[in-house]
């Protein structure tokens, strides 16, 4: 327990370093649909010292509740009608919560610690069995309250669904306001947006390093596409690839040592691999056709990519050394932007039907294809680190916006930006 607490402190400190505190949300998330069976959960407002000033939307219980609700797998119950509001396990009267038909109950406290620190304690209780499912303590700085709430939501999610949660993760996307483009990183719920880099020229194709500390992206600031790698810790960046012609579509290998990129020199787009420090360039495809959008499989064995070598853009895969090319999609005349689920079993991509571009998913074992989204101009799918949701870009009313759909197609979310156009999303990894 002690070592766990130490670990959590360390982790919290690390996250704080990267994320200056602000509770401003750039994206508001609207949930459309939900799972057939939602878990009813009651979250009692945490007891907190009077000195702690927290806006209502930042209160522990609200953040946790919003996270769980957004997943589509939970029904967060209204607790205000319950007279007894326990903050300690000794105060819990299970009958009250059973009457509300709650299956699980979350209680907790925030206490002041010396040195302007806070102690957050929470317990997750099973109402029917009247037992504790989880109990944790966090020693944090005041600006880590939201992130701590996300971590608690992750614990609850994992205990009750059996899958790891992804609330304490981050996403990146490109926002266009007026004529300026900026690469943003925000919490998975759209709060705390931070500008990584901004430019008067387009920025596209951001890609997270597997450890979540760096982003590779394509910027046109040199009047042509050039691939940069930027540290999210120091803000420093370097040019990864600026060869003659285009440099685009970066994608990290699972060990973070290499990136697949697309170069053209004087001909059509071809897939290359390059070390993260810009050395060791190796050409992987050699065709006169277009070969682009490479992504590594999670085991590092294959690279999936888009190619029109067969007359129409389709998804292919090859070994990470460029051998054994195999076509993966056969349904339709336009299948692009491959992404592989974290367990390596599913392929998500953009499929065109007539004039409509939608997010589809294919079972790599059976070849079964399912169209997931109900929007129209979908682009850039990106799996959540637990594989449950797919974040993607779409457009509504002529404006770029983000949306998400669960990989079974049941839960749909729309993330609308309060300001300009948003596009090119990528879901970051879990960093614990």
């Amino acid at each position: 327990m002690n070592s766990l607490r130490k670990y959590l402190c360390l982790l919290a400190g690390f996250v704080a370093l990267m994320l200056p505190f602000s509770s401003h949300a750039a994206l508001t998330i609207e949930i459309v649909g939900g799972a057939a069976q939602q878990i009813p959960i009651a979250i009692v407002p945490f007891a907190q010292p009077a000195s702690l000033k927290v806006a209502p939307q930042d209160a522990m219980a609200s953040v946790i509740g919003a996270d769980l609700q957004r997943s589509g797998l939970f029904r967060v119950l209204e607790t205000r009608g319950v007279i007894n509001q326990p903050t300690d396990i000794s105060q819990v009267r299970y009958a009250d919560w059973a009457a509300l038909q709650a299956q699980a109950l979350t209680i907790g406290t925030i206490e002041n610690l010396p040195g302007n620190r806070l102690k957050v304690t929470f317990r997750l209780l099973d109402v029917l069995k009247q037992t504790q499912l989880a109990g944790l303590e966090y020693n944090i700085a005041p600006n880590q309250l939201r992130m701590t709430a996300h971590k608690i939501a992750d614990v609850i999610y994992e205990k009750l669904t059996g899958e790891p949660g992804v609330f304490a993760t981050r996403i990146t996307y490109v926002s266009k306001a007026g004529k300026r483009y900026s690469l943003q990183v925000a919490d998975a719920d759209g709060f705390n947006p931070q500008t990584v880099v901004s430019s008067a020229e387009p920025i596209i194709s951001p890609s997270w390093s597997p450890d979540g500390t760096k982003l590779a992206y394509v910027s046109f600031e040199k009047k042509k596409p050039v691939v940069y790698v930027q540290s999210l810790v120091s803000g420093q960046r370097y040019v990864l690839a600026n060869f003659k012609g285009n440099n685009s579509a970066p994608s990290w290998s699972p060990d973070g040592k290499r990136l697949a990129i697309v170069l053209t020199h004087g001909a059509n787009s071809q897939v290359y691999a390059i070390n993260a420090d810009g050395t060791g360039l190796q050409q992987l495809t050699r065709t006169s056709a277009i070969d682009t959008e490479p992504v590594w499989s999670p085991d590092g064995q294959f690279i999936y990519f888009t190619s029109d070598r067969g007359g129409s853009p389709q998804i292919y895969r090859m070994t990470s050394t460029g051998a054994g090319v195999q076509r993966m999609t056969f349904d339709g005349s336009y299948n692009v932007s491959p992404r592989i689920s974290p367990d390596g079993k599913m392929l998500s991509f953009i499929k065109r039907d007539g004039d409509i571009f939608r997010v589809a998913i294919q079972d790599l074992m059976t070849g079964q294809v399912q169209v997931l989204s109900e929007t129209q101009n979908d682009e850039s799918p990106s799996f959540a680190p637990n594989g449950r949701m797919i974040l993607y870009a779409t457009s509504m009313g002529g404006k770029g916006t983000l949306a998400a759909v669960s990989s079974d197609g049941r839960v749909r979310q729309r993330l609308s930006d309060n300001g300009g156009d948003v596009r090119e999303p990528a879901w970051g990894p879990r960093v614990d």
Partner: protein
Amino acid sequence: MRRLILGSVVLLALSQNAHAFLEDKEARKKITENQTQNQAAFNELKKSQQALEERVAAIEAIVKGQGLLDLLSQVEQLNQELSRLKGELEVANHNITITQQRQRDLYADTDTRLRQLESNATPAAQPAEAATDGSNASQEASPESRDFEAAQALATASRHREAFEAFDKYLQTYPNSARVPEAQYALGYAQFSLKNYKASMATQQKLLQQFPDHAKAPDAMYNIANSQIQLSDVEGAKKTLRLLLSKYPKSDVAPTAQKRLAVLESIKTR
């Protein structure tokens, strides 16, 4: 000494003068020669320049005449056509693979169902006989035969995994039972139904080695051939079926084996 030097200098000068006089004539001659040569070379040059100009003009005509550009666009069109055909080939190959897979699954399914019908036919007849023999027969059944019947029932119900376990246990519990060959065959058949073709073949092979004359031996051999078919070893399957027909020409399974062999032989192997 001095004189000598002076004299020689004068001599030298004289001789040079004379030489120069002689050379002048020579030179004139050479110059005229050169001139004619130059003229010839010049003409040659002019000619070759003319030729070059003509060739350049021809090349220009080719370039300006759009010949190369047309060729380029033709090459591009051919490339496109080639990719399209390549794509169609990819799709066709994919469809063949899918069809083969489906056919294999369908075959396995049909075969399993037929086998069930076949094995149902015999047990159905047995209880009828047992009933005429006397109703206490089943009550007096030993634990050994009860276990066998239970395992057999699982197999009949297509609960192959449980049937496999039951027969496996049976063989371990009653290694000296008279029904070992039957159990052995049923075990192999369960493995076949679980798509464990290689294991199934090993089991049936063991049966053939230990009880080559048992009534189940031809069935075991037939089962091996089917496993080979599942594993796409058509040649092996043919060999096994031929062996079956030569060794057990009078067995119940022989006619079926004969038919299957005929089907396999109609397939052209690559």
